[in-house]
């Protein structure tokens, strides 16, 4: 988690950050803020601490407040620590029509937590989210870089067991649109 790792990008992550900054005109490096926050979140434990945000502000040469106000606006940034595996279940109309309520209810019971909470072992965080553009394969949830679609209550145990295996060792996969390590 973030507090065990110094807030300092690896060389590979920093190289990617510099490459992304170059995509925007000179003096417009602030444009790279959303992408760089995604990388920072994936690198530093799946959430954005104040320390992390200040670090990003320094890299982009902008004021920390410019980072805070952006980080708090967009739902993909976690401002609190999360479990190793974040289950984001879609609950908007089209998913609800195909049974998303049952999936959420099942997960709450099975994991013994409410939406927004993390299991005591730090393994799972349960979130509900709005339409993920997967309504044709509803109900569904996002986990890291993946969509798990056409869910059913019957399939949930198997899904959870698989997730436990893949996210436990050696390191959790929080997902990022800009993977520092390809294939992760």
């Amino acid at each position, binding site marked *: 988690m973030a507090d065990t790792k110094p807030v300092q990008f690896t060389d590979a992550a920093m190289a990617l950050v510099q490459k992304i900054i170059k*995509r925007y*005109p000179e003096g*417009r490096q*602030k*444009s*790279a*803020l*959303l*992408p760089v*926050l*995604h990388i920072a979140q994936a690198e530093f434990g799946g959430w954005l601490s104040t320390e992390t945000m200040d670090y990003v502000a320094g890299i*982009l040469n*902008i004021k920390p407040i*410019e980072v805070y*106000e*952006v980080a708090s*606006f*967009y*739902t*993909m*940034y976690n401002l609190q620590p999360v479990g190793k595996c974040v289950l984001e279940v879609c*609950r*908007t*109309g*089209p998913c*609800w*029509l*195909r049974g998303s*309520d049952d999936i959420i209810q099942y997960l709450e019971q099975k994991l013994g937590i409410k939406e927004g909470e993390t299991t005591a072992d730090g393994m799972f965080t349960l979130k509900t*989210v*709005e*339409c*993920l*553009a*997967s*309504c*044709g*394969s*509803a109900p569904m949830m*996002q986990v*890291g*870089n*993946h969509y798990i679609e056409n869910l059913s209550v019957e399939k949930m145990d198997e899904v959870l067991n698989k997730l436990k295996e893949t996210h436990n060792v050696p390191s959790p996969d929080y*997902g*990022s*649109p*800009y*993977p520092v390590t*390809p294939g992760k």
Partner: protein
Amino acid sequence: MGRKLLLKDIDVPGIRSFEVYRKQGGYASVEKALKTMTPDAVMEEVKKSGLRGRGGAGFPTGMKWSFLDRKSDKPRYLICNADESEPGTFKDRYLMEYIPHALIEGMIVSSYALGAKASYIYMRGEFRWIFPILEKAIEEARAAGFIGKNILGTDYSLEVYVHSGAGAYICGEETAQIESLEGKRGNPRNKPPFPAVVGLYNCPTVVNNVESIAAVPPIINIGGDEYAKIGVGKSTGTKLISASGHINKPGVYEIELGLPVEEFLYSDEYCGGIWKGRKLKAVIPGGSSVPILPGDLFLKNAKGEPRVMSYESLADGGFASGSMLGSGGFIVMDETACIVRNLWTFARFYHHESCGQCSPCREGTGWMEKVLHRIETGHGKMSDIDLLVDVAKKIEGNTICPLGDAAAWPVASAIRHFREEFEYHIKYPEKVKDPKHFEKEPFVSERNAVVAA
């Protein structure tokens, strides 16, 4: 089978790669445009095609391009809107995921027509796994000389970049998207000035939907006039429809505009009819923001004429008895669906996604969510129904961006067509306390049959 322009090669193995895409005739439009046409000539073809923006508003693409300020000496930008967050819509994702080169090819030709030297694809951040797919496609196109300096030996140079959002529906609105691309919160800007004059980095900018941009290569290949022959009236060409809800075959379908709605809903080539042998109750034909229609009014307009899938036909009857094609997010509900509960999920969505700048939208969406929740859970009063109508009216037309209207229309239309169902929730609080109330016992109108054959 209707004609396919965007998805014709979707089943060709390996179509995601440049090599296969090229073998199928891909990138021909770039060669044709850059080597034999002026940028203005490309724009003329798009104008002639009658292509209308596929992001939801249906504004003619060629006309939008002609508004771009070409007199200023500032750089011009093209932004591809790949934010796709309107509930019920998932067609852009499908296109980008499976035929990424169709979008990249469109980006090159469109950027050429607009004189853009750098173009951005603004994609919603949740599509994390599609970023590497698009970036690979860009690199392949570059390696083949279609992107970069002096494309195909001409003096046109272009860079295309993928940029990620981070979870905010409002960033699909074009001026919010520009703010977001500048690294800020996604607060829509007041218009005017329009992005065509003052857009990204205060430079002239065009924002177009993924599907609009992907439609440009076929238009250049076959010619605008030929494209305009497909479809019906002012609804030209083909359209991707995202079909979801209570149907046998949810998915993305490319249709020729003008296809009878009945065929789209019931034929096995498309939605395959209502699932579980149930009856049709209602359809939201163009994404969560457009008015809902009861089954019978969806199949036939108020004059009893069968509707077709076109901008005009779905809108026939105005707000009294029509809807809109919108983004093509086609949501179907069977007889067990609860209109109030579905609407409540939408109200919650709009409240959650309001950027909070205008008080009618910020406060109004919150009110609607709260009142709908209490009606749905059996705690409503009869006066709540008119309260909802009133709040929706106060939002409509009184906000900076169209999200306010988008939140108000579904509420107004649901009450217009399904008022009796709202009343039922208030009359029988005990029955609706079970969230699955209509699944156990479908709602039957006491006044008239709501359900179509």
